[in-house]
Structure formats: structure tokens, C-alpha cells
């Protein structure tokens, strides 16, 4: 039963992944990617990793909704009403990816996988937490720093108006923004800033 489910979810995940590059509508593309991730999450749940599976669902849904906003923002044809293609070097890309798949699949099928060592623990969630808070503490701290750096980098890169645009000379009181939240045109032109 579990093997059947594993194959089923796997096939669905791959079909949705292929749809990502076949559909015209950017909104549908995003939701196809979401569906693919959800099937991956189901596979992870099938592997008994309840916490990681549910967190994957939670995270990918949030991520894809935000992704959808950006897709509609940047793609020229978000609704796919006028089909268009934006590719470069399709043949090469296809060759490389088919080659990669053949290599990985050959490895999967031909390599003699080792026998399983040990048995699944009764509570993988607690196991993961204990591991992260003890011997893997450096990993956890690195992840924290990476996420913090990502927040800073993201805000810095995407904020058009800097401190002098918003506050003028003295950074006190409420900023003067044409659009609240720090949006709106800059007084310093991009050329000068560079």
C-alpha cells in the first residue's frame, strides 16, 4: 500500500513539475509548482517524518502565494492569454537534464543500496529537536544567521527609498513617504546613488 502511494505521489509530483514549464498562465504555473511541492511533502510524510512533511506544506504554500505575486508582477503575460515562449538553448538544456536524469536513475537502480541500519525512532520530531539543540547547535545557529542575513539583504535590495529619502537629515519621528511603508519615488536618482 505504501509503495503504491509512494509511486502515485511521485508520478503526480513529476507531472506537476513538468506542467510548470508547459503551462502558459503564470498563476497556473505557480500553483502547479505548489502542487508538485505538496506531493513531495506527502512523500516525506509517507517516510514517517511528520514534522518535516507538515512544515514543508506550510512553507511551500506561503512561498508559492508570494511567488504568484511576483510572477504576475514581472512576467509579461501573466494570465497566459497570449501564449509566448521565453527560452534560450532549449536543446542543450534538454540534453543536460535528460543526461542528468539517466545518470541519477541508473545510480538509483544499479547501485546496491546498503541494508537499513537501526529502526525508525518512535518520535522523529523530538529527535530532531534534541539533535538541533545539542550536537547540531552550530548548524542551527548558522541557519539563524543565514536567515537573518537573508532578511537584511532582501530588505536592502528591495527598498527603493533609503534613510535620507525617508527621514532627510535627522532620523527621528515618522518618515515622510508618498506611499506609506517606505515606497514611492526616490529623491536621489539611481544614477547618483551608484
Amino acid at each position, binding site marked *: 500500500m505504501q*509503495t503504491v502511494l*509512494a509511486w502515485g505521489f*511521485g*508520478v503526480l*509530483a*513529476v507531472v506537476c*513539475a513538468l506542467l*510548470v*514549464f508547459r503551462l502558459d498562465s503564470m498563476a497556473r*504555473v505557480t500553483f502547479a*509548482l505548489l502542487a*508538485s*511541492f505538496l506531493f*513531495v511533502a506527502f512523500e*516525506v510524510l509517507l*517516510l*514517517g*517524518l511528520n514534522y*518535516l512533511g507538515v*512544515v514543508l506544506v506550510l512553507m511551500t504554500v506561503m*512561498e508559492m502565494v*508570494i*511567488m504568484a505575486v*511576483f510572477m504576475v508582477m*514581472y512576467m509579461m503575460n501573466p494570465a497566459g492569454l497570449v501564449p509566448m515562449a*521565453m*527560452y534560450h*538553448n532549449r536543446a542543450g*538544456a*534538454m540534453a*543536460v*537534464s*535528460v543526461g*542528468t*536524469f539517466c545518470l*541519477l*536513475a541508473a545510480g*538509483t537502480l544499479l547501485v546496491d*543500496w546498503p541494508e537499513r*541500519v*537501526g*529502526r*525508525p*525512532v518512535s518520535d522523529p520530531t523530538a529527535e*530532531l529537536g534534541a*539533535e*538541533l539543540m545539542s550536537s*547540531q547547535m552550530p*548548524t542551527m545557529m548558522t541557519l539563524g544567521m*543565514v*536567515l537573518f542575513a*537573508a*532578511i537584511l*539583504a*532582501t530588505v*536592502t*535590495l*528591495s527598498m*527603493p527609498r533609503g534613510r535620507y529619502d525617508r527621514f532627510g537629515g535627522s532620523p527621528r519621528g515618522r518618515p515622510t513617504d508618498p506611499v506609506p511603508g517606505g515606497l514611492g519615488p526616490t529623491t536621489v536618482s*539611481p544614477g547618483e546613488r551608484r
Partner: protein
Amino acid sequence: MTPEPFLLTASALFATGLYGALSQQSIVMLMMGLELMIAGVVLAAAAFHHLVNPEASEGQVLVLVTVTAMAVEMAVGFAVVTALFRARDVDTSDQAADLRG
């Protein structure tokens, strides 16, 4: 359970993502390819953890790290696209090839 369904799915996701990352011009679509590749890695790591050595919880930590990489990749990627688009009105990788060696 056998590892084949999980590993073959992971390989197929990775290869599909690679195709997208290589062939798409738009940076947003390219990032979707990268996300798919990372999803493949997540699945493979989870499968190896469960089917080869479920007592070693480092496997779960690896999955967690990969999931974090996925989130960071997307956030920073979109910020870069936003900055690029604002500065140059560009959203394709071909037009942002200044650093090509």
C-alpha cells in the same frame, strides 16, 4: 519500503528543475527551476534518512537545512530581481550577464 520510488521521483524533479533553470530566460521562471531541484534534494535526503539509517537524526537536520536553503533562495532571488528591475527594467538572465567571464 524500497528506495526506488522516492529516489526516481527525486531524480526526475531534479532533472526537470535543471531543464527549467537552464532553458528559461526569465529569472522568475529560472528560480522555479531551482526550487524544483531543491525539492528533489529534500526528497532524496528524507528517503535516505528513513530507508538507510533512521536512527541518525543528522538526516533530518539535512532536510531542514535544505528547506531553509529553499526559503532563502526564493527571498533573496526575488529581492535581486526587484533591484535589477528597478535599476534597469530587466527581468531576464540574458540581459543581466555583465559578470560573464
